[in-house]
């Protein structure tokens, strides 16, 4: 990936990825919501060696801007060969259970806005017969659990969408990489107690780029989560529904 669009560039995992891409001398188009924070990430990337960095502050929940945003990124970098889609919200399960509005907000950001962005991006990549779409999903999308099934559902839906996209774009030589991090120590999870399973954003970013470079389909980062989720997925539903997970 030499010319990369990063959506949600101020998220911790995206920032760590941006640093690695900048050190490789990539050209970057960074998108984030908060202008001041985005500016900080942009300047950091430029100083660390990115060939070129452009940025745009937008709220990705505003779907009407997506077509123009994608167009702008292609224009600014003279084409794109990579996308890292990293924006998302954790939401609050209790609030989501209480009101549809809270549930909808999670689904809109994590699933619908991703689909809305990936639609024009996939079409362009399919036409140019090249490129890598990397999307950060989550292990939470593998199985619904009472503690965060709304977030999980948004990621699960995203996973299925990406499977279909991968199936469609394979013949156009476009890679679709689903990255499933486990717990990551970021501001998003600052309120949670930490244990050994928490990985640093840097570690996740390295795993993400390794997967992108080798055009993997679905990867768990860190790899241990492949095993953990295999076990969790194989618990029979009759047993699972009685567990407190």
């Amino acid at each position, binding site marked *: 990936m030499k010319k990369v669009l990063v959506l949600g560039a101020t998220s911790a995992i995206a920032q760590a990825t941006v640093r690695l891409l900048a050190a490789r001398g990539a050209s970057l188009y960074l998108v984030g919501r908060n202008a*001041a*924070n985005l500016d*900080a990430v942009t*300047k*950091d990337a430029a100083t*660390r060696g990115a060939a070129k960095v452009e940025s745009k502050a937008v709220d990705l929940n505003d779907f009407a801007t997506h077509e123009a945003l994608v167009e702008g990124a292609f224009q600014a970098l003279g084409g794109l060969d990579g996308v890292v889609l990293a924006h998302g919200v954790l939401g609050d399960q209790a609030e989501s259970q209480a009101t549809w509005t809270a549930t909808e907000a999670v689904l809109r950001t994590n699933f619908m806005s991703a689909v809305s962005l990936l639609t024009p991006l996939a079409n362009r990549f399919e036409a140019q017969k090249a490129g890598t779409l990397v999307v950060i999903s989550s292990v939470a999308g593998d199985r619904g659990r009472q503690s965060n099934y709304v977030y999980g559902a948004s990621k699960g839906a995203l996973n299925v969408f990406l499977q279909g996209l991968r199936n469609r774009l394979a013949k156009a030589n476009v890679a679709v990489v689903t990255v499933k991090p486990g717990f990551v120590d970021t*501001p998003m999870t600052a309120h949670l107690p930490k244990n050994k399973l928490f990985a640093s954003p840097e570690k996740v970013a390295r795993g993400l780029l390794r997967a992108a470079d080798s055009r993997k389909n679905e990867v768990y980062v860190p790899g241990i989560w492949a095993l953990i989720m295999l076990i969790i997925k194989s618990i029979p539903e009759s047993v699972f529904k009685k567990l407190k997970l």
Partner: protein
Amino acid sequence: MKSLESWGRYPRVEQRTQALTWRSDALPEVSGSVLPHGLGRSYGDSCLNGGGTLLLTSGLDRFIDFDPATGVVRCEAGVSLDMILRLGAPRGWFLPVTPGTKFVTVGGAIANDVHGKNHHCAGTFGRYVRRFELVRSDGSRRICSPDENPDWYGATIGGLGLTGLITWAEVQLKPISNPYVLQETVPLANLDEFLVVARESEADHQFTMAWVDCLARGKKVGRGLLYRGNFAPPQFDGLPLAKSHLSHGIGLAVPMDMPSFCLNRLTVSAFNWLYFHRQNGKPKQRLTHYDPFFYPLDAIYGWNRIYGRKGFLQFQCVVPYSTARDALKDILERSSRGGLPSFLSVLKTFGDIPSPGWLSFPRKGVTLAMDFANRGEKTYRLVEELDRVTREAGGAVYPAKDARMSPESFAAYFPRHTEFAGYVDPAFSSSFWRRMHPVSLPFSLESERASGAPQPQSVLALR
């Protein structure tokens, strides 16, 4: 509450932590006092805030810009010196002043106005800080430089994190022609020899420091090895310019707390004997990468755990030349008599280049740093005695390395402390600061007690 340690792992206090992420954010609102915390490479309690909150600055680690033509780097305060070297060294720019570890933040380097092996010709880190932003708890933001808000600039350099949060800073790097240092090692028979050779070396060496065998007694007090060096000239010995800038360290890590019986008089003296005699009495020259030259200890990650769970105390003082010989002899003899081995003891000389910082520690004279395993009261008493000897010699003790100096000593060492106190942010405090001002506690004893911090025996003992 989390127990976050300082490098010496003594004292142990409990405090909350709050991670900072964005430099444009307002300071987080918390009850009780706050203190910025970098990489915790200060040894004692100056980077701790028992019962309060530490503002963790490691998330403020972005560069803002770097000009390879002028060597001016602008970055957030949580950027480490290591990150600056990775950026600058391959492009021919080095830190103008660096402490003995590169794992310190720019904010921490400013707040302690750190010094390096080149104080005699370069002064302190603060001299190269062109500008920084200071955020106060009242929400104000100030750009501080020698011209803009010079009083806040002077109070914050060496200001122990008490004047507010530094969010970003602009630092002038210095040009180098390659990453190699031409180093010479000179054996020293005793303290007198050190005083002569160190002065001589200053004339044509940018970097000097000496390792001393702390257990040597009698005529041998101050026996050791002096290291001196300069950045090698370009293309020295046909070596390629700017070879790898990466760490040359062996990259060991201390995997766990070592049991305290590993460190005793016998092992330390054996180590010192071997170390000294490796040199076989003759000066030696060699070419070495900057990493092992400046940061020999960084190669062993987490070496502070060698001292075990109780940790250790470092003591670093500076004494003027007029009293140096007697005072240092006294200090070295007391520590060796105390039967408490100091593994690493370092002697250096400071020149008289002034720092802009009001509370800057370095001043013309000789500085000695020693580590003491924490053996409880015995160790505390020894360090307190060394503080007293230093004060009587007209010297000063380094707050960044201190856990035991007395409030009277602090006042004597830092004559501008009263003026400084007027610049301390009312919401900021540290365990060190409360120790130095036991009567005018800005935060109540009650809240520190409620926090689960160890019960202070007396107001004086409260940290």
